[in-house]
């Protein structure tokens, strides 16, 4: 006899409780990332000299990472679609691809940061770089957490168990992609 958590089975609102919890989590993340990005924007406008610092970020690598995250969002939604069709193993395969995107993103990021740190652009160099490492670092932490969660969800999905989790972890991953969509022009494009 297996035990099923109430969050998986109860729905007092019309939205499954587990998915509702993810939406609440994302609402709180909006305030976290939104506050950080808002603080960056107002400082950037108030400090025209930051445009000179921003010229040292690597647009090519930022573009590559945007491509990777957009692709991983595609595989995440395809995993969701497969789960809706009741095909757990296929959903798991798409989730593993998404995790591959997360690993690729982190590899590019680590290469990029190593290069920047080697050139003296560290988190203590000035307030621009402090924002840069803080925003991208918190985002990177979310990528790591998302990858771990997807591995866990894939391990159950491939056995055709708890398929609703595929959509939930996908929602989180799309949000991670959304944050990067705004970080990219702010840190890499607007010179």
């Amino acid at each position, binding site marked *: 006899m297996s035990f099923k958590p109430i969050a998986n089975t109860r729905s007092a609102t019309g939205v499954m409780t587990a998915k509702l919890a993810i939406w609440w989590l994302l609402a709180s993340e*909006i305030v976290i990332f939104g506050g950080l990005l808002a603080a960056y924007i107002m400082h950037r406008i108030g400090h025209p000299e930051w445009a000179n610092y921003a010229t040292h970020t690597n647009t090519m690598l930022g573009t590559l990472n945007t491509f990777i995250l957009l692709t991983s969002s*595609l595989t995440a939604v395809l995993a969701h679609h497969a789960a809706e069709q009741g095909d757990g193993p296929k959903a798991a395969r798409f989730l593993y691809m998404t995790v591959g995107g997360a690993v690729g993103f982190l590899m590019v990021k680590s290469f990029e940061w190593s290069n920047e740190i080697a050139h003296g652009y560290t988190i203590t160099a000035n307030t621009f770089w402090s924002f840069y490492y803080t925003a991208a670092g918190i985002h990177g932490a979310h990528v790591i957490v998302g990858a771990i969660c997807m591995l866990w969800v894939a391990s159950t999905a491939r056995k055709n168990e708890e398929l609703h989790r595929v959509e939930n972890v996908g929602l989180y991953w799309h949000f991670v992609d959304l944050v990067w969509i705004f970080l990219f022009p702010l840190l890499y494009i607007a010179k």
Partner: protein
Amino acid sequence: MSEQAAAAEHADSHGDHGHGDHHGPDFYYKTYAVLLVLLVVSVLGPEVGEATGIQAITLITAFGIAVVKAGLVIRNFMHLHVEKRFVHYFLITSLAFMFLFFFAVAPDVMNHEGTRWVNEAAIAEIERAEAEHAAGGGHHGEHGGDHGGDHGGDHGEGGGHH
């Protein structure tokens, strides 16, 4: 749990909406293709803006397209449009608090002087950084200078307002 039971359970979990009935892989691939085209435009647009000196091109292609890309992800990948209305309400509430924070704080951060106050540290830091840039100063100079300047700037938010 059997495969059929798992599929049935998952189908139930989407009982509040039915996006699975409407969207197939082709729809997601098309959305992805549009997102990639927008990515290319958002990278090339600011280059055109810089070359022509028209800042509006940079703003529209960098930030306007970011909003469009975000909208596509929210609608076509996250399926927010088919969620219950109250989900929209609490997401909008979070956004409203974010904008409240921005508009409440921005006047003091984006300006360095106002009625009966001047943020001298911030003004000095801008002048120092611009002078260093004009002199072709390298980034190494930023360390020492910015440590002093930024610390002064940070304290200046409180102590620098006269």
